[in-house]
């Protein structure tokens, strides 16, 4: 017979090495105190914060980015006029500006800059840096995707659309090195909230211009070694799909109170991988959390699971220009037959709130109209009014979603709810690849599409302004003169209470017309290592990293 010695030897070697390994583990677990230091332990000792951060950053240039994850990194590297408070979204922390004031109707804001603010190369931060930055992001040649955030400035929109060429006509002036004046298009009592956003961060002119023109959108200035920033940290390493590392800025004005000795951001965009990395003690914090493990973590003692209110809404867009969605009664029938409680309780399971309106109720004191609620009888009534004696008569239509297990589950549940309540048989679900999905929504080439919206600042305006006619985020074909008028009027009111009242009126119009089917209000669901201290729940989830401390638990 043939004796297969190489295989046998190989197998023996493998099995012996497995045996040794197992023996070592067993021996180790038997010996008390044989706990090796994990990666997280080392990082805590060295005070390096290890954060899961969703996807790979598109750029580390405040004028190019648009995603939440990218903004997280920029918030560590740059500091705006006003910054986020570590525990309360409604409070403002002085950033580069020591103090600020506005005129009576909140249309002109004056920021007084601190004299000791420095860039990471030692240069002072001046009001001219902000003017330069606002010119850059608004400049039409720059084509910054999020330039519309600066349309608050007088003539900002006109300059961005090349309607005027002269930047000095835009409402931002450096009175001197340390005083900046912003003149707004319309009153905004919440303006200090707005300038916290990444789009309002300053950039270092000499650095940008040593790698190209002001408006060159992709130069090497943002790379480690080149990048100069004014925040608590500066960029030291960046490897695509692997990590971004920032370390304390030696010239930062408040460097004594910067607690971490560095932050590593890991672009783990697979939620299951991220959770495992956390369980394996490789990271301090996960960006998200797989839905199916939420219950497991809830049952744990001293669970690292955190569930916090988050200013965002999950909803379906309806294309009101296309049958059968062009029929208001039909849209109502669909809206009233979605059982939002069931979805948050059994499908998303992350403590989300059923969305009876569009704008999430927030600490800003705005209370949305609670009108869209599950009501099968009302739904059937509206189906009749829409001209269908039963659901089987409804023509085929499709829900489009972008590829994701979570969106899929929700769509399947809703499809079945429509079937059970209204008897609609011909609802299809179509999974689309991300860019195809964006194109389809952008072209309003769908019947129903999945959508989500996270607030940019704490004010209902960030949720309601997109439904104005022809807003580039509307994408439903819906346009309503009353709504436009109410929103415009609300923009002119400086008294917050009166303003909210107008906005609520506007939102009532939106919810009466239902170009959107609200489903739930978001929560942040994530895992946080107990070593991380002073990480507080925040509505916008914008944590100022300098206050976060690492102490072995």
């Amino acid at each position: 017979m043939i004796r297969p010695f190489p295989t046998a030897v190989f197998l023996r070697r493998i099995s012996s090495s497995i045996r040794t390994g197992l023996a070592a583990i067993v021996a180790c677990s038997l010996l008390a105190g044989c706990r090796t230091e994990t990666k997280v332990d080392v990082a805590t000792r060295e005070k390096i914060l290890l954060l899961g951060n969703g996807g790979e950053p598109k750029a580390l240039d405040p004028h190019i980015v648009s995603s939440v994850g990218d903004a997280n990194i920029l918030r560590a590297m740059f500091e705006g006029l006003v910054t986020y408070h570590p525990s309360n979204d409604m409070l403002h922390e002085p950033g580069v500006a020591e103090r600020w004031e506005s005129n009576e109707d909140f249309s002109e804001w004056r920021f007084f800059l601190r004299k000791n603010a420095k860039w990471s190369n030692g240069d002072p931060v001046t009001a001219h840096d902000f003017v330069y930055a606002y010119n850059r992001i608004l400049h039409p040649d720059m084509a910054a995707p999020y330039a519309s955030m600066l349309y608050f400035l007088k003539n900002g929109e006109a300059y961005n659309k090349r309607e005027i060429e002269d930047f000095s006509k835009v409402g931002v002036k450096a009175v001197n090195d340390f005083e900046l004046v912003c003149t707004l298009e319309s009153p905004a009592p919440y303006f200090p909230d707005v300038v916290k956003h990444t789009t309002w961060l300053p950039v270092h002119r000499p650095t940008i211009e040593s790698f190209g023109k002001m408006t060159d959108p992709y130069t090497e200035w943002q790379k480690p070694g080149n990048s100069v920033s004014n925040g608590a940290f500066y960029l030291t390493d960046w490897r695509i799909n692997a990590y971004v590392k920032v370390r304390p800025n030696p010239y930062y004005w408040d460097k004594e109170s910067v607690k971490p000795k560095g932050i590593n951001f890991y672009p783990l965009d697979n939620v299951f991988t991220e959770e495992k990395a956390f369980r394996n003690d490789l990271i301090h914090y996960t960006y998200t959390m797989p839905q199916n493990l939420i219950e497991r973590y809830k049952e744990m003692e001293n669970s690292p699971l955190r569930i916090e209110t988050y200013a965002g809404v999950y909803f379906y867009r309806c294309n009101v220009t296309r049958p059968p969605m062009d029929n208001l009664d039909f849209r109502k029938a669909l809206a009233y037959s979605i059982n939002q409680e069931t979805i948050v309780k059994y499908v998303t399971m992350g403590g989300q709130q059923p969305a009876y309106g569009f704008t999430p109720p927030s600490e800003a004191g705005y209370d949305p109209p609670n009108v869209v609620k599950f009501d099968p009888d009302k739904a059937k009534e509206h189906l009749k009014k829409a001209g269908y004696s039963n659901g089987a008569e409804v023509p085929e239509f499709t829900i489009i979603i972008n590829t994701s297990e979570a969106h899929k589950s929700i769509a399947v549940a809703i499809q079945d709810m429509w079937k059970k309540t209204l008897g609609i048989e011909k609802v299809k679900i179509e999974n689309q690849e991300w860019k195809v999905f964006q194109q389809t929504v952008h072209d309003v080439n769908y019947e129903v599409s999945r959508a989500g919206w996270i607030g940019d600042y704490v004010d209902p305006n960030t949720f309601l302004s997109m439904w104005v006619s022809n807003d580039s985020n509307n994408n439903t074909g819906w346009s309503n003169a009353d709504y436009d008028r109410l929103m415009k009027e609300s923009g002119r009111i400086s008294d917050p209470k009166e303003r909210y009242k107008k906005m609520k009126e506007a939102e009532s119009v939106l919810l009466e017309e239902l170009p959107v089917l609200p489903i739930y209000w978001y929560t942040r669901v994530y895992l946080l290592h107990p070593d991380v201290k002073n990480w507080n729940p925040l509505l916008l989830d914008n944590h100022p990293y300098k206050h976060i401390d690492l102490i072995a638990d």
Partner: protein
Amino acid sequence: METARYILSRFGQSLFALLCIITLTFFLARLAPGGPFLDEKAVPEHLIEQMNKNYGFDKDLHIQYFLYLGRLIQGDLGPSLGNKGFSVNEVIAEGFPVSFMLGIVGLIIALLIGVPVGVFAAAKRNTAIDYTLMAIAMLGICLPTFVIAPLLGELLALNLGLFDVALWENSSAWFLGALTLGLYYSAYIARLTRGSMLDVLHQDFIRTAKAKGVAPMKVLFKHAFRGGITPVVAYLGPALAGLIGGSFVVETVFGLPGLGQHFIKAATNRDYWLINGTVTVFAVLILVMNFFVDVVQAWLDPRTRSRN
């Protein structure tokens, strides 16, 4: 110099094939709907126009194509549109070593397991050992990598603590990735080896050798092995290409910054230059591998050589 001419003409063909691949990819990528500048939050039309202008996408497609070829000849693969500030050259230079290491280590694992198991199973044909080994191999084939990879992660990293479960830097997670790929391909190689070994073992010269009283071990390894390994060698080209290009599932599951992830992300971001760049690298790799496979096959099987 027959061999030199063969190699030269083969090289010329490969170059032409490369040009075809680059051309097809260039135009295919542009056919796909959506563009690199679309975002979840809508970007105004005039800004998209401006960005197209900034990146030269406003020119006629064929002009862009020739401009691209011109840059390509100088070794410039262009800027990455999804990772702004990085050039495609840099992205590939960072990603390739990761994928290459995964691929090579994976292939070594696959060969170390696959070939001996295949030979052994062929020698023990139709016995319980054979069936068991092939059943395990089949299990390896039908369990997709997106099942094996998390299973290995749970088992070896989270339960036994032998490896890290994710990340690249100071992390042993890459070995789990290579192991996943290796196990998967070893199943293929085991089955292929067994099949072709059986073919060879039935041939008359083996019987002759056996009849002449040559030791069974010697028959197996000296006489049968060389012929039996030929289809495996033919498979190595596609296998390595598949290992390196198809490692994206493994790279995603273990959070590794390899080319597979770069390619998938480039495709979903419509990062045109990075799509072209990664495909060009894959293409060069496949062409080079196939070239070597042809040469090695000719060496293993003298009859093929004489015809060429």
